[in-house]
Every structure is written in structure tokens, then in C-alpha cells.
């Protein structure tokens, strides 16, 4: 994609959930940060701190109570065709073949004919190494292959922004490493703006350009670490750098400090 992908800007974003018969639960509070076009930012934080909530706000699935979310400068008021997301669950439709699953997101786009949908799905399946499985059903694929199919579906709509909510956390260690590598190559190759939510600090360091650390609930950004590491787009190579481990250790101590403060 030759054009410049959009930036993500959050400005003083707060999201509260009403609890039946109690004070509202503040999931995230006054979160502000920007993701420059074409960069890959990871968000880490303790469980329940509002990471998925944050992602839903950026995806336009949920409105903020305060503050604004902008994508490419425009305020987010609902789902946008520029944004695609992917979760820990592959969310493949079991009644569709892999090929038809990859076409799913394109079916809501006006003006894309069936032949073009098919061609784009085939291209993405090839990019994700799944061409041989186009006519299989999700139940016939391994977890890692299903997650790759989900990435193909995400990329098929040619999004400018990709949101990833713990996409590797349901996979075994080895599949995880291979998938991180292929996702990083594909996403950096596609030149999109990406936001990755993860529990795995080393994964954040290996894949991202920058890591944001969130505090426990109510979630706020407590640390913003730019990663000065070579081998962008190759997590395998990055993991071998001593400095990557220093970054992971630093993230770990930040999270632990925050937990100690909260206790």
C-alpha cells in the first residue's frame, strides 16, 4: 500500500461501565497517546486494566464517556472501514470455508464484486501461507492456522489500522513464536498502523516500535517506552539482542512497581 496509513490519537479518554446497584466502574481514565502512521505500538498492563476496552473504543464499537478518539484526524463515531481487529479467539465462522471466511469482511464493502472478493481473499491466503487450505473448514485447521486465517481476513479489507487483542495467547509456545514472526513480517510489510495488546512482555518488545504500560484499574498510561532496537519486523532476530531483554526487564519492573503501589 503506497499511501500513508492513518494515525491513532486518544485525548483524555475515560470509559465507565454502569454496575447494577453500585458506583460506576471506571475501566480506563484520562488515557492520552498517539500512534504515528505506520508504527506498531504494543500495550501491556495487568489483567482487567481496560486494555480490551481501549481497543473497542479505537475500533468504534463502544463510545468513550469523556475525551475523543481520532483515526487519521477524524473523530471516531462508529466502526470505520479503515480499521480491522483481531482477537485471541479466531472468530472464524465455522460454517464457511477458509476462503469464504477471508471474504467475510469484504462483503460489507459496497462496490466489491464477487470475483474481486475472491481474488483478494486468494491473495491474502497466499500471503499467510494458507492457499492449500482455502477450501477447508475452520474445524479442520490447527489453532495456529486458524489464527493465520483470521489475519488474512483482517488484511483482506486493506485496513489502514490493525488492532490486535492478545492474538497469540491461546497458542502453544512454538506456534506462538512462528506466528509472531509471520505476523510481524506481514504487518510491517503491509505498512499499516498497528496496536497490539498483550500480556507477554517479550512479545511486546520483539514486535513493536513502542510499548505503552497501563496501570491497574482504572487503567492509565504509566509508561511510554520507545524501543531502540534493530531488526524491525523480525521478532526472532530481536529476541537475540541483549537490549531486548533489558527492555522486557524494565517493563516487568514497571508493572510490578505499579502492582505494589496498588496493593
Amino acid at each position: 500500500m503506497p499511501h500513508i496509513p492513518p494515525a491513532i490519537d486518544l485525548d483524555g479518554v475515560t470509559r465507565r461501565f454502569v454496575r447494577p446497584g453500585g458506583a460506576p466502574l471506571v475501566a480506563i481514565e484520562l488515557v492520552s497517546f498517539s500512534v504515528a502512521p505506520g508504527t506498531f505500538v504494543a500495550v501491556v498492563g495487568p489483567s482487567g486494566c481496560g486494555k480490551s476496552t481501549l481497543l473497542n473504543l479505537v475500533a468504534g464499537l463502544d463510545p468513550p464517556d469523556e475525551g475523543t478518539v481520532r483515526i487519521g484526524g477524524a473523530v471516531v463515531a462508529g466502526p470505520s472501514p479503515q480499521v480491522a481487529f483481531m482477537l485471541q479467539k479466531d472468530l472464524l465462522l465455522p460454517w464457511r470455508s477458509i476462503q469464504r471466511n477471508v471474504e467475510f469482511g469484504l462483503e460489507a464493502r459496497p462496490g466489491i464484486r464477487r470475483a474481486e472478493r475472491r481474488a483478494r481473499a486468494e491473495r491474502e491466503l497466499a500471503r499467510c501461507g494458507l492457499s492449500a487450505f482455502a477450501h477447508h473448514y475452520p474445524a479442520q485447521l490447527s489453532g495456529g492456522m486458524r489464527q493465520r486465517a483470521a489475519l488474512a481476513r483482517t488484511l483482506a479489507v486493506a485496513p489502514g489500522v490493525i488492532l490486535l487483542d492478545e492474538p497469540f495467547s491461546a497458542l502453544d509456545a512454538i506456534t506462538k513464536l512462528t506466528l509472531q514472526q509471520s505476523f510481524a513480517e506481514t504487518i510491517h510489510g503491509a505498512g499499516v498502523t498497528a496496536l497490539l495488546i498483550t500480556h507477554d512482555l517479550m512479545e511486546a518488545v520483539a514486535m513493536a516500535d513502542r510499548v505503552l504500560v497501563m496501570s491497574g484499574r482504572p487503567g492509565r498510561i504509566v509508561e511510554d517506552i520507545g524501543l531502540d532496537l534493530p531488526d524491525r519486523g523480525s521478532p526472532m532476530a530481536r529476541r537475540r539482542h541483549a537490549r531486548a531483554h533489558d527492555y522486557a526487564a524494565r517493563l516487568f519492573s514497571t508493572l510490578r512497581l505499579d502492582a505494589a503501589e496498588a496493593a
Partner: protein
Amino acid sequence: MPSSAERALGVAVAASPALPRAALRARAGAAALPAASVAVAIVMALAWQFLPPLLGVPKYILPPLGDLVREMARMWRQENLLLHLVSTASMAAAGFVLGSAFGAVCGYALGLSALWERVLSPYILALQIAPKVAFAPLFIMWFGYNAMPKLLVTVLVVFFPILVNVLQAMKTADRDLVNLARAFSMRRGQIFAKVLFPASLPNLMAGLRIGATLAVIGVTVGELVGGESGLGYLISYGEGQANTAMVFDAIALLTAIGIVLYGLVAVTEARVLHYIPRPPMR
């Protein structure tokens, strides 16, 4: 009998020609089951034919199997059995189709409107608990002695399991899946057609299975209470004549209708839900 684990293993190795003994055992195991079922049927038939006379059970209590077959032939010749059979079968099928259609439409409609679902759910529950077949006399008072009451009872009996199953599927639909469709900018109609409806099919099919068995009950009650045609009518007619064999035969035919209806649903289900992997063998 091999354990289920052994059988599963047997099936797994059956594909490999390197293990002929295991393959043979697996094939023998696969053949043994239907053979055993047939054997049970033969034993039962022989017992039915010969035990009642041996034990001195009178024919009007339990006619031997041979009498049932003879009575069936007589009914075919003298009682217009085919007409009654067709009447009951078509009524069961019509009631099943109409009841399922109404049930499914209401289930999807309520599933799409959380508000109406909450408003109506106590009444749905009450109606679901109410014994539907007890409405048959009421329908006869309203519509007279014609096909309408039978059809209505059947529709009513079939309606609820389908409604409840579809509604359940709509309520438990994966919210992340719906959010995925929303994130792709799909509209409500598209989300229903592409996600919610296909996701509900396993539940719908489960409802249809139950509905298929209930349809026969509905028609039978309708015909028992007020009919001059159908197998249910033959049951009450046979009862009046103390013709036990006739009653048994009518019950057998009603069961057959139910099995055919259920079989059709099962075949449809296997085609519709082809993507669901079957467990290797239980």
C-alpha cells in the same frame, strides 16, 4: 464388546493396511452392532408371537404378532387404511412445517428485540408449561369436527420447542462475533443474515428434531378427541370394538410416521450442519 476407546483406535488403524488384524477387528466391530440390533428385534418378535399364548395372556390384552399383521392387511382392505394413513401423515407434516415456521419466525423476531423478549418471556414460559394437547377440545368447540383442530394442536405443540431453541441461540450468540461484523461496518440485516442466523442453525435443527416427534403426538391427540379420519380415529374406533390388534397397528403406523419425519429432519440436519465435525464413534 470392545471399549469405545478401543473401537476409536480400531477405526483409526483401519485405514492403515500395515495392521490387517486390527483392521479386521475394526470391521468385525462395525458389523457386530447392526447384527446385534437385528438379533434383538428377532428375539422380541419371537417372544411377542409365542410368549403370550404360552403364559395364557388373552388375545384382547396382547394379540400375538401374527394377528397384528393379519389385522393390518384386513384394515388395508376393509377400513380404508391408506386414506387414514395419508390423512394423519399429511396433517402431521403440515402442522410440523407451519409450527416450525411460526416458531422460528417468532424466535428470531424476539431474539432481535431484547425489549419484547423481556416483555413477553413470562407469557411464553406460561404457555410453554401449559399442556398444549389439552387445547384440542377447545379447538373442536371453536372450529367443529374438521381438520382445523388437529392442525392447530399440532402447530401449537411444534411451535414452542422451535421458538425456545431459536431464541436461546439468539440470546447466546457470540458477542465477539457480532462485534467483528460490526467492526467490518455490517448493518443489522447483514449481521443477522451472515452471523446470527447461520450460528442459530444447530439450535434450530435441535428444535426441529423435537418438533418432529411432537407433531405426531399433536395429530394423534387431535384425532383421538374429535375426528372421523386418521390413525388416531382408528385407535378410538378400535378401542370401541375391543379390537386390540387395530390399536396396536395404528400405534405402529403413527410411530412409523414419526420416524420418517424425524429421519427427514436428521438428513436435512446432516446436510445443513455438514461443517460440524462428527465425533469418531461413541
